[in-house]
């Protein structure tokens, strides 16, 4: 079965540079979530999109922005990178919010970002 695809898998950037992470959800999934996992920490929710609209926002820095496109893929744009942004970034997808019932989030393999 098709899974969530993230690219790139690894990324090395210098401080103050920008980075763009991409996420391709499971086919027919219309909701995308972004999480950040620092070293030795649990994943922290950043932001989510449903049908190309932002549906929820967590602890995402103002230097970061994200969007979901018409084909439901999503991109996380990170500017003015700081050393503390070094982390694993996970994307997850699920079926939509319609119906008001819970849908399981399925995670991609993650992008490991290292800021030097």
């Amino acid at each position, binding site marked *: 079965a098709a899974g969530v695809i993230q690219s790139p898998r690894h990324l090395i950037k210098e401080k103050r540079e920008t980075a763009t992470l991409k996420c391709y959800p499971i086919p027919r999934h219309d909701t995308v979530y972004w999480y950040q996992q620092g070293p030795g920490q649990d994943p922290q929710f950043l932001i989510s999109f449903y049908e190309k609209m932002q549906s929820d926002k967590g602890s995402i820095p103002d230097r970061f922005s994200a969007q979901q496109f018409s084909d439901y893929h999503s991109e996380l744009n990170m500017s003015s990178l700081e050393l503390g942004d070094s982390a694993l970034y996970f994307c997850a997808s699920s079926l939509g919010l319609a119906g008001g019932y819970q849908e399981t989030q399925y*995670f991609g393999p993650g992008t490991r970002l290292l800021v030097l």
Partner: protein
Amino acid sequence: DQQVKQNSPSLSVQEGRISILNCDYTNSMFDYFLWYKKYPAEGPTFLISISSIKDKNEDGRFTVFLNKSAKHLSLHIVPSQPGDSAVYFCAASAGGGGNKLTFGTGTQLKVEL
């Protein structure tokens, strides 16, 4: 404020025995709970979930129990296999479908031969 807690950072179990991983939560608005398994440098893999309207859900070797009054859930793995060795995260969400997940701190399970 850690709303989902896994108080055991590690657990060691012999192959064939039962593994019991515990999770406590504080937010009474949580109504959907999930367990994920995670290997290093990989994304979390969904194992099993439970809605707050149930107190038990079973899928093969995995069973999740929910005690709403105690705000506690547990994952039972029977029998445990060496391939089960990984970090297990408990996660919770609130409200109607598709809401953000709040994760616990994880439990490293090691299944020994």
